């Protein structure tokens, strides 16, 4: 989309004022509206990271599609991972309304320049991980995403409405897997507990660093891109999830977890932020594999994308020469 040239009567000051007024009045900013560069950059960064997370997130679960233990589970998992591709696509589209380009974003991802949710750098070792991911990881994602449906940037907010609508099936199918396992054989129950042990802490880390050490919080909150702090959302997730763990008859892998009756909240033990930053820095168990898989798919697909483009050009040329002849 062309950057638009403003009419002479409108000065930068007015534009900024109008933008601030919109934000203050909870009006959405739309693609072609004037916006501060930093707002645009923040959004492109956040939306593309979000899109990358969906796309990379397909891999750990995709890993189990061919081994799903029943045909029904196979269909559900495949539909779910397919949804992630759809979510990635909605989000890349939203980033494109800001002038970003999907190929550039993809390049940044496979060159290792872009970030994505670090949870997907953990391996999926058992079928129970399909349950834990749907239930905990998607559950945490929903916590993060529901407020984004009201984010100030229109195209992002609308993409998130669609994503959230589809995401609730994801969480339910995950919980159902855990439920079946916890009601199943001893081995299945052990599988469920083992999976919870491995995914609990990384899920809590998904909300990002503690508020005092998060770098992007304040400005994003002011611009209404972000509406709740990391810690607020994390607390909400813990309060909601603990009763579900109890329902499953599983044990929370946090010895320091306490119910605080006066605050009405659970108090959780300390999160190992070193692990979090190690994984972000590229040292998680699967960082390299995930990027390599994405890179391979992109490279292997290049000749196909080129062929389709070449074919389209030929067809267009043919159509326009036909038109010339007809005229």
């Amino acid at each position, binding site marked *: 989309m062309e950057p638009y040239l403003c009419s002479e009567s409108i000065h930068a000051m007015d534009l900024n004022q109008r933008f601030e007024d919109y934000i203050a009045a909870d009006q959405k900013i739309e693609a072609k509206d004037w916006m501060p560069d930093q707002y645009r950059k923040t959004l492109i960064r956040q939306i593309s990271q979000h899109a990358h997370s969906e*796309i990379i997130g*397909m*891999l750990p679960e*995709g890993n189990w*599609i*061919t*081994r*799903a*233990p*029943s*045909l*029904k*589970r*196979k*269909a559900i998992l*495949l*539909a779910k*991972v*397919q949804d992630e*591709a*759809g979510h*990635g*696509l909605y989000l*890349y589209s939203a980033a494109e309304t800001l002038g970003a380009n999907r190929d550039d974003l993809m390049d940044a991802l496979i060159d290792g320049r872009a970030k994505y949710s670090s949870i997907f750098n953990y391996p999926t070792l058992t*079928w129970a991980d399909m349950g834990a991911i749907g239930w905990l990881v998607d559950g945490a994602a929903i916590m993060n995403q529901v407020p984004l449906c009201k984010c100030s940037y229109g195209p992002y907010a609308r993409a998130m409405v669609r994503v959230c609508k589809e995401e609730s099936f994801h969480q339910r199918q995950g919980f159902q*897997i855990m439920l*079946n396992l916890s009601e*199943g*054989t001893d*081995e*299945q129950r052990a599988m469920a507990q083992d999976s919870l042990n491995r995914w609990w802490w990384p899920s809590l880390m998904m909300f990002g660093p503690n508020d005092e050490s998060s770098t992007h919080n304040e400005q994003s909150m002011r611009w209404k891109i972000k509406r709740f702090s990391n810690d607020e959302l994390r607390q909400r997730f813990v309060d909601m999830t603990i009763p579900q763990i109890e329902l499953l008859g599983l044990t929370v892998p946090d010895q320091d977890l306490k119910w605080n009756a006066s605050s009405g909240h659970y108090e959780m033990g300390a999160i190992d932020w070193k692990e979090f930053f190690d994984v972000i820095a590229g040292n998680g168990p699967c960082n390299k594999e995930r990027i390599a*898989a994405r890179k*391979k*798919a992109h490279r*292997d*697909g*290049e*000749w*196909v*994308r*080129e*062929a*389709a*483009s*070449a*074919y*389209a050009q*030929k067809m267009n040329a043919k159509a326009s020469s036909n038109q010339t002849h007809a005229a």
Partner: protein
Amino acid sequence: MTKSQHIDWLLGLADDALILGQRLSEWCGHAPALEEDIALSNIALDLIGQSRAFFAHAGRLEGAGRDEDRLAFFRSDREYRNLLLVELPNGHFGDTIARQFFFDQFALVRYTHLAQQTFDPEVAAIATKALKEVRYHAAHSAEWMLRLGDGTELSKARIQESVERLWPFTGECFEEHATLDAAIASGAMPDRSQAQTTWNEQVEAVLNQASLTKPEGSWSQKGGRDGLHTEHLSYMLAEMQVLPRLHPDAKW
């Protein structure tokens, strides 16, 4: 058609769909474009859905208490009845498209008949629904045959090679086989030579339009309907069946 032939025939229908669906699902997360990833998954989902319907029907007819999962996860490769074509590895995108194209054209002919036949009304119901899906699959694979065949020099060379490599596996769709002969005799399956002619015409039309050459060879690989498969199927089943085999008493 005897009852055991009837069941065998249904399993063939189910196995074709399941094995191809399983193969396509391997693409999930790895396709050439995000949009195509979603398209391939959709086709895989349709196929898995079709297989479930056929398995359920076969299981009921058999009356031995085998449900769809029992049939899918507890039969060995020697008991699988699918065409060799559908179990072949995905290869590159062109290989997958060529395999899909040949199969879709076959499925189109077969389901068109299945939807109309009166020998097995349940199959007719499944086929009526599946036919809509298969028409879409056939359009998808034919479009891609055109794009790859008439795209770049590289894509043309690759897809031509895929067509030739897969060609010997297409004859099995129309082979003479006791179960199928019985199915044809009872009106459950379309007349062999008519079906093959239709298939040939459709395939040739698309290949021509894609400026690809139809292979000359008439040799065809067979054995799938009797459980004699390529080396690939056993690996695929080992992966697919691992959990139910490891935990035979578990429910998922």
